[in-house]
């Protein structure tokens, strides 16, 4: 690999690049899913390629190819330089990278069981058993379950002398049951919606989830939702379970703190951010108990890496500290904009074929002191929403509206009726400002988000958000129209 990477760096330099890097990536991904006892999707994908990123004439150029040969690397490196020179036709200032120590290192995701060594028969056998439990009742018309495993071997070499050899491994699993009657359809999922729980772990993730143990409950809850009343409309206290809160963190804190968005680099697509530069260190993002920490080193996080695609070591820092907006997510290109001398290590690309950009890191709401039972007992009137179903947030990341799979009424400190189609709406700083109780670490789970979209061309990235059930006061719920 050293020889191949050297080819790209030398070619780029000879042609006038002032900076160059090459990432060669080899990926194996296995996906298995079943629907109503039959294969719903199956695939074993092998993929290899490389991308060359250069700065020439003060502007970026990037080219990539699936043909990993010395001649193709030579061609693609030259193409990247040529593209950079075309970029320079429309530039306001030269690209400037925050300094980063030169580094040679190896890093790999810790895991116990290599998921690719577990037989497909064993994986399918578990999914078939769950399917059988879910379809015990004929009102369950669609039972789906799946697993996904991805191993990625990355080599990064830069013209500054950095060389990183990194192996990442992630696993995921989950299932759902959809109950149908008279045109109504309701879904329940475990351990999370949208394909389940994901983590940088081996097959031990799947066994740790105890998937079969929850299948009876999931089936019965889906059926109960068919006849449950609609979530009432109005203002009330809201307790969000961890998975729903993870999406709330992702959308209303993660994306707004990506510094490239703040300065307008996503303006044409995903939007900008209300968390503008003058707010750093001053703006009240939430109540005093709100502490949100970005952490590229968090064990099992989907965004947990040794080094990002700029070659920057993973870090941990506050985005919101004691309710005050305290930090951005950055890469080497934009770090200087907020006065940082060093990148926070958030530069990641979707595979070899895409250019790296600022991506959400693992970002978590730090646990509080409450036990869930005590929190519910302390809530006179409210709703407890679980498992994300729908999400939408504006282009400044202020006005959001989310939906959950299920809600429980809270009346005089006790859980009551089940509500279907629960939704809630708010404005980001007002919402986080209404946070008055967070459950403790016993309830805290790091939830994986395996498919965060951003950029043009569209890229997918993975990250995790840790959360425990949390209470928000006087929130608008039950928006059906």
């Amino acid at each position, binding site marked *: 690999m050293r020889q191949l990477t050297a080819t790209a760096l030398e070619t780029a330099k000879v042609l006038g690049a002032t900076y160059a890097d090459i990432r060669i990536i080899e990926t194996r991904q296995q996906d298995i899913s079943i629907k109503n006892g039959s294969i719903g*999707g199956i695939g074993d994908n*092998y993929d290899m390629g490389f*991308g060359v990123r250069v700065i020439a004439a003060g502007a970026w150029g*990037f080219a990539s190819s699936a043909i990993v040969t010395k001649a193709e690397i030579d061609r693609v490196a030259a193409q990247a330089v040529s593209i950079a020179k075309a*970029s320079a036709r429309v530039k306001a*200032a030269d690209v400037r990278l925050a300094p980063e120590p030169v580094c040679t290192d190896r890093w790999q995701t810790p895991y116990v069981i290599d998921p690719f060594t577990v037989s497909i028969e064993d994986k399918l056998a578990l999914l078939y058993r769950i399917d059988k439990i879910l379809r015990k009742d004929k009102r369950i018309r669609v039972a789906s379950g799946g697993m996904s495993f991805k191993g990625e071997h990355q080599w990064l070499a830069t013209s500054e002398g950095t060389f990183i050899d990194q192996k990442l491994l992630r696993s995921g699993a989950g299932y759902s049951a959809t109950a149908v009657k008279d045109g109504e359809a309701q879904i329940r999922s475990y351990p999370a919606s949208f394909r389940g729980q994901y983590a940088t772990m081996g097959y031990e993730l799947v066994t740790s989830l105890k998937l079969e143990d929850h299948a009876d409950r999931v089936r019965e809850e889906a059926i109960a939702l068919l006849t449950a009343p609609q979530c009432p409309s109005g203002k009330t206290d809201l307790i969000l379970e961890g998975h729903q809160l993870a999406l709330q963190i992702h959308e209303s804190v993660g994306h707004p703190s990506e510094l490239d968005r703040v300065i*307008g680099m996503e303006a044409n697509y995903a939007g900008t951010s209300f968390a503008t530069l003058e707010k750093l260190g001053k703006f009240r993002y939430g109540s005093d108990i709100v502490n949100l920490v970005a952490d590229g080193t968090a064990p099992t996080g989907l965004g947990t890496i040794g080094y990002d695609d700029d070659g920057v070591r993973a870090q941990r820092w506050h985005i919101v500290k004691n309710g005050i907006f305290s930090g951005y997510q950055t890469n080497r290109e934009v770090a200087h904009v907020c006065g940082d001398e060093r990148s926070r290590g958030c530069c990641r690309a979707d595979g070899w074929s895409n250019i790296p950009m600022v991506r959400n890191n693992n970002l978590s709401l730090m646990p509080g002191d409450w036990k869930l039972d005590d929190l519910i007992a302390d809530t006179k009137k409210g709703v407890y929403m679980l498992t994300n179903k729908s999400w939408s947030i504006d282009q400044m990341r*202020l006005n959001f*509206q989310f939906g959950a799979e299920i809600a429980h009424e809270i009346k005089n400190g006790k859980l009551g009726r089940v509500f279907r189609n629960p939704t809630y709406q708010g404005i980001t700083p007002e919402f986080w400002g209404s946070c008055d109780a967070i459950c403790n670490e016993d309830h805290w789970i790091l939830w994986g988000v395996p498919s965060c979209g951003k950029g043009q061309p569209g890229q997918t990235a993975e990250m995790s958000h840790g959360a425990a059930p949390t209470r928000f006061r006087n929130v608008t719920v039950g*928006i059906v129209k």
Partner: protein
Amino acid sequence: MLTKQQAKKICDKVLGFSKAAQTEVILTDTDSALTRFAKNTIIQNVSTKGIDLSARVTAGKCVGRASTNCLDDASLKAMVQQAIAQAKAERPGAEIPPMVGPRKYQKVDNFREATAALTPEARADAVAYIAGKCRAANVECAGAHSSSTGIMVLANSKGMFAYDLGTNAEFSVTVLTADSAGWAEGANRDCTKIDTQRLCDVAFDKAMKSRNPQPIAAGEYTVVLEPAGVTDFLMYMARGFSAQAMQDGTSFLTGRMGKKVLGENITITDDAYNPEITGLPFDFEGTPRQSLVLVEKGVPKNLVYDLKSAKKDKTKSTGHALPQPNTIGGYPTNLIVDAGNSSLEEMIKTTKKGLLVTHFHYTNLAERREVVLTGMTRDGLFMIENGEVARPVTNMRFTESTLRALSNVELISRDRIFAQAFFGGGFLVPAMKINKFNFSSETKF
């Protein structure tokens, strides 16, 4: 880029390596490029060459699929073996329909030389125009200019072989002032048909006209939706047209086929052969793609089928299969809303009080049965008063049933655009004037 002959040779090689009862190969080879700009500067400029090859094998009621982007013999053999091993590991599931034999496909010319030849320099020149204009006006632009050329090839052990060579180009631009934004987008297989300068001017003018927006109260309004806004409705209805969703009971059309669900003036077809929206003439099982009227004068008439869902309903595939195996069934990828006889100008002129919406942001499904969507207005929201665009207003969140909205359409434009949806998809859509459209909450920008 692989030629048709080279592609066929690779497919034949893979088929030759397989001893499975049935084998299918999907091969893509794509060159794509994109210039991205923001803050009046090109911030990303990329070119990618990607190949992907996958094999699906079936053995009785079992199926396997594996893929690779390495085309050497050893990699291809390993891929086939991987797929066969998967199939052997399974318990027999639902019956898998036999793969199709050789078919004749309608000729569709999806390739445009100018798009294939578009250079980074030419893309930069298009960006330079709006960057210069914005710099002079002390405002900022952002956007993307992209092009791609690719082949889609299908072959199977029954002798089916399908090949398409196509190009795509797109230009989208946002202009931002301190308190407003304007946006425009164009997409076409032929990049010369996209008037990038006109799109830039539209976005610029809209940004200028939407400065100093004033808040208004959420509630029901008559809206004049530019075509991009209409796209969101189609995107979330599309899956409901799948016969598989109907069989599962999860389609919004469950129990509603043949009954009026949309307005009398709404007709929706799926047509890959419309010259303004040409798509693939075959689906991912090799079945020729049919043109279908899905909703006629507000009444759902047809569903889209793949082989499996067709077998269950004892009918034929309509040529709308996605790559198998999947849980979705057929899917309409070329949705077209019938044009009306109005214009954007007439819609505004006939509106006493209403809102002109440029497009929506981050729309998502809030409720399935009535296809209730929620999303934000974006890049230019204007109050219409007494038949004129009176003033800009701050953005609002809508929460509205698609079925209700498309039952309250008063006017539909003659002109239609090819529009891409927020997370992909392509539709031919007109502008619409819709009464009683619900906005559920407000913003301050």
